[in-house]
């Protein structure tokens, strides 16, 4: 397990579009007021076509509100939004065939089977019977639900429901997918399955993916926007954002055979680090220790001698860039 997950593929984000016609998603002054609370405050956003776009924010930042506004399920207090060139905030029914939407907690008719549900969604999209059958077969295969396709949805696990949710969003092959926190309620295995599925379905399609789990965003997205208290803080390519931040952290992985965890040597090491002036912060997770430094040359000179002095057995010693989590916490604090 790594504190710094890596995307399976480095992707360069497409250039930022500047109009509803050229953008996959375009928001202009999108706002939502609930009584005294301004859940979304003048969101101006242009998501490039073909990108896997992470929409990052803490709980309550306004991510789900934005998703519901984009999907036409909530109505803006001000501003407008377009998906694939069609306005979705004007209740135009045709705009709803331009995107597939997966809410945070997808719900289905429990009396239907997975195949029946997908067929119903296909009928709503007026897909011809042959094309519908073909698409459903492909999507059941893609979502790993082929075996369970004739089982009632009521008996599905959380991961299966999320995968069925993504499959139903893909019916009709929409150019844009809106996925609202698709991994937040899943166990690690379920998360892995869903992220794998998102990686597979991206490509020419735009995936707009909201999450507060930074590892997931870092793993699958090429661009991201950070939302905080209803306001847009930042829009950037993931690589470009990380590149802005210097390599100022070192990650150590202790060898379990060394017994430092049991003997207390690891605890003594972290305590000693916290007293050193050039150390900014220390985080531990199991056998992993991450040290952020204020002064990189001092750190490079001082850290190894300290490890040697305490006699720690180290499997890995690596200077790394900060994770999105570090950057996000820094920005939103």
């Amino acid at each position, binding site marked *: 397990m790594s504190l710094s997950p890596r995307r399976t593929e480095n992707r360069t984000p497409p250039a930022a579009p500047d109009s*509803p016609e050229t953008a996959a998603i375009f928001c202009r002054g999108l706002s939502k007021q609930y009584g005294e609370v301004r859940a979304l405050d003048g969101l101006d956003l242009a998501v490039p076509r073909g990108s896997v776009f992470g929409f990052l924010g803490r709980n309550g930042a306004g991510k789900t509100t934005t998703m*519901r506004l984009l*999907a*036409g*399920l*909530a*109505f803006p207090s001000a501003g407008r939004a377009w998906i694939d060139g*069609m*306005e979705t905030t*004007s*209740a*135009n*029914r*045709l705009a*709803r*065939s331009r*995107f597939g*939407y997966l*809410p945070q*907690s*997808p*719900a*289905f*008719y429990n*009396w239907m089977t997975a195949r029946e549900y997908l067929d*119903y*969604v296909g*009928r*709503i*999209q*007026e897909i011809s019977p042959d094309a519908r059958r073909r698409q459903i077969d492909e999507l059941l295969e893609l979502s790993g639900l082929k075996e369970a396709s004739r089982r009632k949805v009521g008996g599905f696990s959380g991961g299966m429901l999320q995968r069925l*949710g993504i499959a*139903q969003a893909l019916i009709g092959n929409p150019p844009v997918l809106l996925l609202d926190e698709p991994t937040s309620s899943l166990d690690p295995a379920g998360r892995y399955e869903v992220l794998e599925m998102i990686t597979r379905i991206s490509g020419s399609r735009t995936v707009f993916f909201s999450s507060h789990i930074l590892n997931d965003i870092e793993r699958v997205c090429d661009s991201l926007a950070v939302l905080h208290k209803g306001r847009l803080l930042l829009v950037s390519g993931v690589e470009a954002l990380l590149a802005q931040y210097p390599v100022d952290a070192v990650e150590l992985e202790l060898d379990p055979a060394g017994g430092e965890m049991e003997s207390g040597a690891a605890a003594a090491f972290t305590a000693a680090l916290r007293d050193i002036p050039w150390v900014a912060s220390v985080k531990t997770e199991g056998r992993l220790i991450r040290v952020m430094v204020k002064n990189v040359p001092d750190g490079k000179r001082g850290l190894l001698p300290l490890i040697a002095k305490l006699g720690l057995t180290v499997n890995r010693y690596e200077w790394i860039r900060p994770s999105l989590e570090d950057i996000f916490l820094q920005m939103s604090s």
Partner: protein
Amino acid sequence: MEGQTGMLTILYGASVLLMILVPVILAAGLRRISSAPWLLFGIGSGTFVLSQVVHLPLNQWLADLGLLPGTVAADVPIVQTALIAGLTAGLCEELARAGGYALLRKLRPAWMRLQDAVMLGLGHGGIESMIFGGVLTAATVSSLLPLIGADLGGFGLTPDQRTNLQAQLDSLAANPWNSAYPLLERLIAISAHVVFSLMVWKAFTGAGLRRNWFYIPLAILYHAGVDFAAVYGMQYLKDQTLLFELSFVGMLVPGYVWAAYQIRLARKSVALADPISDTAPQSSIRSELAVYRTAVGKELVQLWRTKRILVTGAVFLVFGMGSPLIAKAIPDIFKSVEGMEQFAALIPVPSAVDAMDQYLKNLSQFGFLLAVLLAMGTVAGEKEHGVAPMILSKPMPRWAFIAGKFTAQSVMYLACFVLSGAGAWYYTSILFGPLEPAAYLLVNVLLLIWMLTFVALAVLGSTLGKTTVSAGGIGIILSVILMLSGSIPRFGILFPQGLLAWAGQAAHTAAGQAASAVSTALAGQVFVNGGALASAVVLIVISLILSVGFFEQQEL
């Protein structure tokens, strides 16, 4: 004679149905070319109903003062009647409309566009067409039709009253195509309401009331003027209905021209301000109907899979088969209970009439509860469970979502009535002898329509409620109000509860104990209650429009 009555029934039936449906069709047409919300149709209907809450008692008060014709003064000059009636109509309706706009401007300023004003006008004129056109025409014609060719001598009428009634019957029978005139008049009235609505809207837009206030008195005067001309002109053009209607249109021509100019102005300003929306393609009606059929299919499968059809069908079958059996067994039940034997002799020998009475009693007592219980979760449940946002983020129109549910429930109750009807028919035939088929069919059709009014109200409750429980509560409250409405003095008979009395008459006819139109009238009842039938259809239509209107405004 029967052929003529049949022809008149069909033509007036079509005219009444169109008076109810044309406003909805016009509003649907407006929705296709603009984004005016359906809820505004409901709000427009509300302003009409509110205006009548003041208008009708006001006219009654003026009649009591002798200023309008009534019991105090029968011979009020026609000029005075036309003037006062026109002014009260203009004042009450245009001020109610102005109140509506004032509220809208405060609560929903986004709904102050020209298309919204047209929708409000359609709602206001639409409900007027449904009630004053559809329900009253249906009530009048249905009460007159059975009297055509009947001997009016048995009614106990004065000679004058008999002459008047005969004249009405002769006029009704003279030309079946006269049935088109009430419809034509309502269509013109709807267009007038759109013009008046735009005039009052104009007072609230642009520079606002401070500069445009004069549009309100202008609308009142124009409305009063048109009504004055209609009442006054009637005495000269009494026998030339078409000419009368054309003169009505003539009065409205300046209004049409002004409204067309306003529409042109608004279109220009929208195109300048928002070229993107102006060019956005809209979905076709054929496509929306295809999705509606899909929704109906899904609802029917759901009713089947969740076993609701089976349970409801079984309940109806038990009611159908059980009613004649209970009617037959009641004397035996009394005989078998110790101490009650002496009462058994007092009970008349059961007949098919008792079987039919029992059938009606069973279905009317439990029917509305079943309707509410089965429909209460239909929308609220899907909102609560979270399926509704999944489905409505697809190209499923919200109207199709609501209408699909109502249609599927209607099909279910139709099937249930076939079961109960067949059961009651079979056992009544075995135990008491055959029933008259046409009258028996009418009983079941009337009961079905009566029940569908409760289904429509329950769907409205389910749309308004956030949870299934609250939806059920709203549905039951609306149903109780509907049932109580049947007891309103003078007007109660025009509410859907009147269908039960009509079904009772038809049930007795089916059982071979037919009453004549004259004897029914003498008993103070209605032989054929077209008013109740039309009001049931109006209630279903308005409930569904309100459901769609509210649902469109709900965030999911």
